[in-house]
């Protein structure tokens, strides 16, 4: 299954891209995907969103289309 991985702000800086298509399966967790794509990135420093909703790092992504790395937000 094809998943769009989005990286914002410092996550984008650290990964070197904003958006990438990656191959995943429905039983994978965000933590496992991150460990595979960017093993140096620390998941405790950010939140993760699946299809525009905050998601647990350890809950499988299921049939999600989009996974986003959300570093600490600072709007306003």
């Amino acid at each position: 299954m094809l998943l769009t991985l989005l990286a914002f702000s410092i996550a984008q800086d650290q990964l070197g891209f904003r958006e990438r298509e990656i191959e995943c399966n429905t039983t994978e967790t965000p933590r496992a995907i991150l460990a595979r794509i960017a093993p140096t990135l620390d998941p405790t420093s950010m939140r993760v969103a699946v299809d525009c909703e905050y998601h647990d790092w350890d809950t499988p992504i299921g049939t999600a289309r989009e996974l986003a790395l959300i570093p600490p937000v600072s709007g306003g």
Partner: protein
Amino acid sequence: METSILFIETEIVPPPITLPSREIGACVEFYGIVRELENEQPLKALEYSVYEPMASQQLARIFDDLSAPHPVRAIVFIHRLGVVPVGEASLFIRIFSAHRSEALAFCSAAIDRMKRHVPIWKRAVLDRVRV
């Protein structure tokens, strides 16, 4: 509750005030403005980015959640993106309600929640860097 959520790249110009009904007794407006000093560094500007579909969805839910304790009639939310120079507004919120306390409490709580949960990011553009 009428809600308008907008992200724009240009200077924020508040839309003309049009009352949603004859039962509106309060209109609260908030401008968040870029200050020169942030963390004791002199800034030239802040640069904002957003994960827009998620931000819009989160904001809609925050507004909806807050309308239970603080019933308001209409909300206009505008967040600027890209480079926002010192002295210009990065954020504009307008809230209409029957009574002032709801609109003021809603405004305060909405900004607090936005700052914690809505995927918007700012980055300093320092004075020595050419924007």
